[in-house]
């Protein structure tokens, strides 16, 4: 064990049984995606005239954006509030955010009927400033660019000492210096852009008050989306860091992650207070007893917010990684369920004759995308300096 830790590529064999499962999921998802692009949405999804949005919007896009919030919350913690001991988790969180947003784009392509027009919102003659989705789209595009810029130094560091390729090394050093000097501008932009589109994602459904179930429809839906995104940031970092350590056979960053539990519980508590307060003020619980919606809302609130809130509060010096990971995972799944609930379960069109449940194909594409994201994460941390490890060999 050593005290000096700096980000380095993880020395780890790439092919493991776990990676094999990921590859299988990716292969199946890829085949279904190809089928979708050849035969269309009707052949692949259970979307219909009553339910225009399905699993791909709720999980691939909305949940993807929410779970990538660890990137901006960690960036704010380390670079804006200068809690620099958390630097260790900033890079993995940045990688997760970068991959997460990239996959939001890829997932969206599968869902868009005219995916080849995905660039239209960026074209000034087609700008439509009244549209909430325009704001989300523009912010996501800008933030994705910011994330790539923020990630650039990590790529440069890999090659800037490469003596076999002096020209590449020189270029990398120059780029690294330039980006690092202006990095604070991008860090701030990333935090602002995140706040804007995380909240706007919640604003999307505000336009359909008559179609939304009272348990979820509230004018403060944008605020709840922002609060939940901020609240899921640190738990996501905890989960991702622990699972990466376990999977790659590295030492857990337990001391640091335990310290993240306190702010995570406070942020989750704020979200819980707003969510419950809003429900009580609006009396959205009236006449919902016994419905599917009531059950889904209860699961979301109890298992996704309240229980992990208490679990995080109990974290102390001796808390195990398993406890931390469980609490974090509950928050992550809770926010994912919230997005599913808001975009799918709460959506009740006036002339609905059936309900929507995703097709096998939709699940396959979503699972494939998540598997591909995890695989890319693994490939990148074994090639680029992302994860901080003690100098020397990894834990055996």
């Amino acid at each position, binding site marked *: 064990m050593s*005290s000096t830790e700096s980000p380095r590529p993880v020395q780890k064999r790439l092919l493991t049984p776990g990676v094999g499962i990921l590859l299988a999921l990716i292969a199946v998802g890829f085949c279904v995606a190809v089928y979708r692009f050849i035969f*269309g949405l009707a*052949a692949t*999804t259970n979307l219909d005239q009553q339910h225009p949005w399905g699993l791909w919007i709720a999980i691939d896009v909305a949940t993807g954006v929410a779970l990538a919030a660890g990137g901006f919350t960690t960036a704010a913690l380390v670079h*804006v509030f200068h809690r620099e001991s958390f630097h*260790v988790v900033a890079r993995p969180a940045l990688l997760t955010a970068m991959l997460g947003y990239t996959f939001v784009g890829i997932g969206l392509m599968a869902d868009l009927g005219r995916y080849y027009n995905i660039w239209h919102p960026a074209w000034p003659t087609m700008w439509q400033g009244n549209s909430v*989705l325009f704001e989300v789209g523009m912010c996501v595009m800008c933030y994705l660019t910011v994330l790539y810029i923020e990630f650039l130094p990590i790529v440069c560091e890999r090659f800037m000492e490469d003596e076999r390729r002096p020209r590449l090394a020189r270029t990398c050093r120059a780029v690294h210096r330039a980006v690092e000097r202006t990095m604070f501008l991008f860090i701030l932009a990333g*935090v602002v852009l995140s706040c804007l589109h995380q909240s706007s994602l919640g604003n999307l459904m505000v336009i359909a008050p*008559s179609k939304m179930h009272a348990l979820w429809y509230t004018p403060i839906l944008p605020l709840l989306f922002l609060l939940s995104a901020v609240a899921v940031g640190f738990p996501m970092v905890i989960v991702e860091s622990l699972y990466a350590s376990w999977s790659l056979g590295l030492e857990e960053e337990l001391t640091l992650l335990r310290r993240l539990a306190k702010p995570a519980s*406070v942020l989750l508590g704020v979200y819980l207070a707003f969510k419950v307060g809003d429900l009580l003020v609006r009396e959205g619980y009236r006449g919902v007893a016994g419905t599917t919606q009531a059950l889904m809302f209860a699961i979301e609130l109890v298992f996704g917010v309240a229980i992990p809130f208490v679990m995080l509060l109990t974290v102390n010096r001796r808390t195990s990684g398993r406890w931390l990971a469980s609490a974090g995972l509950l928050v992550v799944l809770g926010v994912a369920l919230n997005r599913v609930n808001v975009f799918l379960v709460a959506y009740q069109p006036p002339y609905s004759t059936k309900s929507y449940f995703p097709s096998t194909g939709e699940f396959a594409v979503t699972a494939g995308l998540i598997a591909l994201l995890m695989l890319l994460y693994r490939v990148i941390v074994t090639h680029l300096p992302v994860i901080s490890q003690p100098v020397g060999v990894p834990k055996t």
Partner: protein
Amino acid sequence: MQVEQLFMALDRREFLRTAATAGAVAVGLGGASQSVEGSVAQTNANSVGVLVDIPNCIGCRKCEFACGQAAGFDVPPIETFDDKSVFEAHRRPDPHSYTTVNRFANPDNPQKPVYVKANCLHCDVPACVSACLVGAFKKRPNGAVTYDAWKCMGCRYCMVACPFQIPTYEYDNALTPQVRKCTFCFDKIEAEGGVPACVRICPNDALVFGKRSELLALARDRIRTRSGAYVDHVYGEHEAGGTSWLYLSSVPFEQIGFVQLGSLVPPRLTESVQHGIFKFFVPPLALYGLLGLVMWLTRRDQDQQLLPVAAGADAIAMRDNGRTHAMECRGASEAPQAAPSACETEVSEVAR
């Protein structure tokens, strides 16, 4: 204890951001709602509409036939539209039929069922227009809400936004799917004396085409002069902020498949927040500046300042050539043998 400081800092950030956003929304509300109201007044003055006198509809479905022809669909011969069996189930417009007639039971007279034609109502402040991020939907000066397929990305947010559940999608088209809905026969009504196909073919004066303001007066006149023949409500006068299509009924609207909406204008809900947050770009820039200020004020490592150095720092940062490297110095308490040099260097630097 450092964690308390940490979450105080987070709390402060949270509070400031919420306050900034809330303030911005409040400031923006005035301007945004003004612009929405302005557009209502403007379209109302010049726009056309259709008055549907529901008791006059005999359920002949000729409008379905004429609509299909006008839209260029492959429609079966007109005789096939006499088939009454389709009324067994309620049908909604779909990509191949912009309008459908449905039958409802008449509580006043079981012998005379009520037939209701469904199609796009062409809202005065359309939610689809507000929702569309590329401006593929447009509210035309004559009142029609039209769609440009070439701009469309196929995100289907218009379908989510529409309170009347009108836009439909060509899910089975893999390459060039379109959102499909009633066009108000835009090209026809733009021409002098032009009338939508459904209005032209209607044999029983169930559909009246004209200036919306005049149709509204006509509707009120019918309610007044034929007392008892209609419920005292013109559907579409205020619903969702007003629609180009207006409806008169002898049966309460909620009994014949009309959505109960009230005068709430859906786009106003989102646009007030949207324009509030982006009012002259002040709120985003203010947040940017505020965070920048925090960044500058806390530019020295907060963990170093807060940690009691002697008690065994568990986190120390080291700066080398402009780049910040953080290191976990678990060493002090957990592994005394571990590389003491780096920790000690830092500790002494902090302690100076």
